[in-house]
């Protein structure tokens, strides 16, 4: 809590930086290295989407706490074109860029919480979080 890491996304090196910072933060939160990779992969997908569809934006990483559970929160913000049909965009295989259409549904599957907020012409905000499994 408190501390947050704001990472600009404007080039493909920023995508690598964001997922590596995400992994480092997940390690601080005590996630296993398998889960760190899962979080890094989800960040990679949404950061790449920012670059591809909005050209630039920001990823905000922070540690979160809920009772005695610790987690990592990832917020991706852009002022790009927005997503006209979020339900469709969340479907596996839907892509407006001849992609696989696996990014958003994949990231959702990897994280515990996943929310898309988007207004056409205004931009997109994706909020996701992963919680550490109670032992």
């Amino acid at each position, binding site marked *: 809590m408190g501390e947050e890491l704001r990472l600009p996304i404007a080039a493909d090196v920023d995508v*690598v930086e964001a997922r590596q910072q995400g992994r480092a933060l997940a390690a601080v939160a005590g996630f296993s*290295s398998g889960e760190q*990779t899962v979080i890094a*992969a989800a960040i990679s997908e949404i950061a790449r989407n920012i670059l591809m569809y909005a050209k630039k934006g920001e990823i905000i990483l922070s540690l979160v706490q809920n009772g005695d559970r610790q987690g990592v929160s990832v917020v991706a913000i852009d002022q790009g074109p927005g997503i006209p049909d979020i339900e469709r965009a969340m479907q596996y295989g839907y892509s407006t860029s001849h992609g696989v259409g696996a990014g958003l549904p994949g990231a959702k599957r*990897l994280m515990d919480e996943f929310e898309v907020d988007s207004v056409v012409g205004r931009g997109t905000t994706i909020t996701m979080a992963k919680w550490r499994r109670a032992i």
Partner: protein
Amino acid sequence: MEVPILRQGQYLIASIQSALTDADLSHLREALIAQVGRSRCRGVIVDVTALDVMDSFAVRTLRDITHMARLRGAETVIVGIQPDVAFAMVQLGWTLKGVATVLDLEEGLAFLDGRTKERVVESKPKKPSSRG
């Protein structure tokens, strides 16, 4: 970050040394396909041990390399997928469909030796068989 591509006998070996950007991955694909054509090699090994994540772009690039190399007469095998990376891939429901993966470089070489031998056998003129 350029990925070094070494030639060993009839095979090309690309060893990824660090995390790669999408541009680096695309560059690796182009370089490998160009070299497969130029060197007429029979096999390609991509060592992904140092790759930090296997996200949709990396998966797609490895699939593309496999398919494009096959069109040019070379088999591809991916070696060194880390357990953590495999764990994330399984959760994503991603399989490297149509892409051969083995544990390490040694197994990769053995795999290609097997595959290229098969090909030689296959390409010998066959006697007409009685099978319909």
